[in-house]
């Protein structure tokens, strides 16, 4: 078996950091968004739901292309950042982090929306009547009762980010230590006819993906049984 070299370890490091940050940021963003989608009465919900779900159906290249346009040195976001003295976001870790957050959004938002819908309004109303304010209610009632939703959202986001390829290649290119994630490295290995290296990394990802999904499905099933 091909031993992992420094290039591989570097790619693993970038990949894990990307997955971790994406998961943390997405959970923070998706929780209020999913709550609003599950409980809100506004008509804008369908529009937002559709936008959030776009990455599920769009080719990653489309998303990557537009992100490149917007975040690149001439795009609205990229140019503004440059004018303010920062670096534009194309071909940078921050750039692919932004892209991952958008690309994995549905995998965080949908399980949470479903968990919040299933929760119903009763437990929250009960907690309010017992004197719990909004944060208190979230901490002591909503979160414990929708924990399975959070577990699923976090694992799927993490795993899906690890499986990203097209968007990253479009927006981030293949800069070692910055944007070269495992999936891109595998592609590079294949292009260089280095099949043995590609195989090791591919197998690694395959096992990881299977384990993650297996764990998620066992967890959700277990949580469903536990739910009263």
């Amino acid at each position, binding site marked *: 078996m091909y031993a992992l070299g420094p290039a591989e370890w570097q790619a693993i490091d970038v990949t894990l950091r990307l997955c971790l940050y994406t998961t943390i940021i997405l959970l923070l963003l998706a929780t209020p968004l999913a709550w609003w989608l599950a409980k809100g009465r506004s008509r804008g919900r369908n529009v937002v739901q559709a936008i959030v779900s776009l990455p599920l159906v769009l080719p990653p290249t489309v998303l990557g292309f537009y992100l490149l346009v917007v975040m690149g040195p001439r795009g609205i976001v990229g140019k503004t950042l440059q004018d303010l003295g920062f670096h534009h976001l194309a071909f940078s870790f921050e750039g692919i982090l932004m892209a991952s957050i958008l690309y994995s959004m549905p995998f965080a938002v949908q399980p949470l929306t479903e968990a919040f819908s299933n929760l119903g309004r009763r437990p929250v*109303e009960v*907690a309010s*009547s*017992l*004197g*719990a304010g909004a944060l208190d209610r979230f901490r002591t009632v909503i979160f414990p009762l929708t924990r399975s939703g959070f577990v699923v959202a976090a694992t799927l986001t993490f795993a899906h980010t690890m499986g990203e390829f097209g968007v990253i290649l479009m927006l981030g290119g293949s800069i070692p230590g910055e944007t070269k994630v495992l999936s891109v490295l595998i592609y590079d290995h294949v292009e260089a006819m280095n099949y043995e290296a590609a195989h090791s990394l591919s197998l690694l990802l395959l096992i990881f993906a299977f384990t993650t999904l297996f764990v998620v499905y066992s967890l959700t099933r277990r949580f469903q049984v536990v739910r*009263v």
Partner: protein
Amino acid sequence: MMLRIQAHLRYGGDFELRVDHEWPLEGVTGLFGRSGCGKTTLLRLIAGLERIRGAAVSFGDQQWQQGRQFVPLHRRGIGLVFQEHSLLPHLSVQDNLLYGYKRTPARLRRLHLPEVSAMLGIEELLGRRIDQLSGGQRQRVSLGRALLISPQLLLLDEPMAALDTQTRREIMPFLGRMAAESGVPIIMVSHSPDEIERLADRIVFLQDGLIQRIETLHESLARPDSPLFDDAGAVSVLEGALGEAGEDGVRPFGPPEARLWIPRAGQASGSRPTRILIRARDVSLSLVDPHHISIQNHLPVTIERIDPPADSRCVVACRTADGQLVLAEVTSRAVSQLGLETGKSLYMLIKSVALLG
């Protein structure tokens, strides 16, 4: 303490709720009406769960809602009990009971776990998980949990609707006791005349989103056309102390001059007044005090009113020696044969087994 509500809400095109009323909150207020008349919406408005634009709600001198001002439920000091079980499934019975208690400032705590669990008979359940409780037990724990925030007001949304008749009969005395002993005013939504008659002191009648009238239970029962009278006809409610059972298991009820005998186990006797319900069609009238008859209860009464006959039946309202009103339903033929008229003294006969405890 006065409750004042002003609200106008229209939804779905055909439902409208229009309220502009105030009434004093003491004892139990029954919010009575058919399904879909707006009872629950009104309750949710009082609780602050329904934020109706332009509505105004005040409780004593506290403005709960007025213009842009809106006090959220968790700051209103309202205990809520819902129809179906609403215990938090991830907490034990004790943690459910204490959830609100812990969040109540110590200086505001008037009711504590030992006395509340004794009042509701749930001491033995404290260590259990929620899924180990029966429906009736869950509802008692919900009541206890709401009481333990030492609320200024308790809102009960059809608290017995999801329970079977047997369990309902078990819970009823606890509710009555809770209302009397906790000193917390209660608003209870119900579509069951029986529950209202047993528990309410004042009734808000709601129909098609409008409050028809607000009156005391006694005022309402004295009205021939009371909405409380359903298929079973007119009903009277007597209040009195229930004594200890004798050897034959029959218990005395009320003062000596208006004593009834009730075959009933279960409910504790005590100085606290108990209510019993008497259906008008279970009551007979006699000009003399008959002996040699199986009917145990003979009460001397005076006729206060005879309602005009309907379907050749009349409701005769009689005043007992201790001043309470009991209705008797007799045929108009009986009225003329016995020469019944207002002011006449006679005897009222009630079969003990017909008395609804």
